[in-house]
């Protein structure tokens, strides 16, 4: 602890150039991630460290930074030296290529399954007994239903929430965009609080007892049940939702500088291994390995899933829905 602290002082306060040397037996990785992956990586990091030690004899320490996806991507762009990023949406990761070329253009093809070792979806949490009888998306846009969801402007998870609702509305209105917009407008009219991140929303719903429905990640929902009691909340899985694909990638520019490319790549690849996939399943993410996925399938309720491709990919969706004066701004502007 003391040496770490002294190192921090010397490396930073005195601005000495102390970087992890390539030959060192001690490898430090920084994983910059979004909010709900805290528990996942807390469990995964030591397992990977053990694996890496057995394989190479080197000690690896993985440091974690969690926060809203956009904020985290911006921090990496501004110089937070992440060896790997594991963010909520591909759009945020892609900015690392778009703005500073920290990663190659084809980053999403470098790892299997579009660089997504785990997927998830968007579900609801309601209070025990489901007093309002919420079953599907059309139930939560009714008047007098109070919902909690984060702000899509500041939270990646909230963007998935928005898109899930939009996709449902499109399907049930013969792809009529105007009807979908109307549907989503109703939904956000019911929003009691727009927190800046997914964790903030969970706190509002659980600790502050705000709202009848919390729209959130499936993994977060099951975690909430474990953490705060199955006797207080239940999960409602809608008939249709979006397949959320949180991508991971090595920040090649930074890893090359740190000399950690090999460890960082293996860190992400190991997520796809049986051991990694088990941890993913245990933390209520949906594993991508078919065998492990089958093993954990019974913990999730079946539902129909659509992909981001429905909207033409993240760049299109981001500009259409979440940019300034996009659909999200319009639905709030319409009331004024």
């Amino acid at each position, binding site marked *: *602890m003391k040496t770490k602290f002294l190192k921090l002082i010397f490396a930073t306060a005195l601005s000495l150039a102390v970087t992890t040397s390539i030959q060192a037996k001690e490898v430090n990785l920084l994983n910059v991630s979004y909010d709900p992956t805290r528990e996942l990586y807390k469990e995964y990091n030591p397992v990977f460290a053990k694996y890496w030690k057995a394989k190479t004899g080197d000690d690896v320490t993985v440091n974690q930074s969690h926060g809203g996806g956009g904020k985290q991507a911006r921090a990496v762009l501004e110089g937070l030296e992440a060896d790997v990023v594991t963010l909520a949406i591909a759009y945020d990761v892609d900015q690392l290529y778009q703005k500073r070329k920290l990663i190659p253009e084809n980053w999403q093809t470098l790892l299997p399954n579009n660089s997504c070792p785990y997927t998830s979806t968007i579900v609801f949490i309601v209070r025990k007994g489901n007093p309002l009888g919420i079953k599907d998306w059309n139930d939560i846009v009714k008047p007098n239903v109070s919902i909690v969801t984060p702000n899509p402007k500041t939270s990646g998870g909230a963007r998935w929430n928005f898109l899930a609702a939009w996709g449902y509305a499109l399907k049930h209105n013969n792809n009529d965009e105007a009807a979908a917009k109307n549907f989503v407008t109703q939904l956000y009219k019911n929003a009691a609080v727009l927190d800046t991140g997914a964790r903030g929303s969970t706190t509002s719903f659980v600790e502050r007892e705000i709202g009848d429905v919390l729209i959130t990640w499936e993994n977060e929902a099951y975690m909430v049940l474990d953490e705060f009691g199955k006797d207080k909340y239940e999960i409602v899985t809608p008939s249709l939702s979006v397949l959320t694909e949180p991508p991971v990638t090595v920040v090649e520019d930074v890893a090359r500088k740190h000399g950690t490319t090999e460890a960082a790549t293996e860190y992400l690849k190991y997520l796809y291994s049986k051991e990694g996939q088990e941890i993913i399943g245990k933390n209520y993410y949906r594993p991508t390995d078919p065998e492990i996925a089958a093993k954990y399938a019974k913990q999730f309720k079946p539902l129909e899933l659509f992909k981001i491709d429905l909207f033409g990919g993240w760049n299109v969706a981001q500009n259409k829905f979440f940019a300034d004066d996009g659909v999200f701004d319009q639905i709030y502007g319409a009331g004024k």
Partner: protein
Amino acid sequence: MTTQIHPIQHTKKISKNISIQDPLWVRWLLITISIGFISLFICVPLGLVIFQAFSKGITAYFSALSQPDTLSAIKLTLLVAIVTVPLNTLFGVTAAWTITRFDFPGKSLLTTLIDLPFSVSPVISGLIFVLLFGAQGWFGEWLMAHDIKIIFAAPGIILATVFITFPFVARQLIPLMQEMGHQEEEAALSLGAGGWKTFFSVTLPNIKWALLYGVLLCNARAMGEFGAVSVVSGHIRGLTNTLPLHVEVSYNDYDVIGAFASASILAGLAIVTLILKTVLEWKQTTR
């Protein structure tokens, strides 16, 4: 800005002249209102922090505090304060000397500029350092080429804190030194004392309590700053989280005990600071 927040001298006796005393019912009413107001807005929140921190008992409290991430947050917070406070103290004394002992054009502009950081939104205070030292900022490329880390490391956190606590010492001293006038110093100078000697043997003894109070406030604020530091920290656990950031991280980990235990250290620190201040005032009046 000249009158606010200076050490209160309780030397003046409350007049016993009955004609200027308020009727008993007025006194009780006002005392009740102010105690009610302060209890509602200060005592109850403070009580909640302490209650939550100890809600699972003393053992849980101390085990939360002895987490490695908490300890490293405490260390970083101390490092920030150790660098920030002396820097701003030196500046505060110099600025107060300049402003109260000399006349020059633009003096009120200078006073306003010294106060400026205080009313700048914390979000902006963090942003400006990102614009300067971030990878896409003014010095970003140069810093990267030389492998010097400022943002998302201790120097960035220290800089943001120095900015936030910039006016604290100066604004404690300026009103006091203005009121003091400079006859005593002039007398010392005319008797042949040098500039430094005059400062240390005449000025400093007169301002020492105000100076201490300024230092204490500056220190409390330096340890407690959240908004600006949050922008430049990078939130790396065990490395760049200060105590206030650690409170937020723990809270978002659903670790209520950890969050409020860390918060209680900061609240405790604030209270110790305030008690110290009261003791100082008391010492001053009984001297």
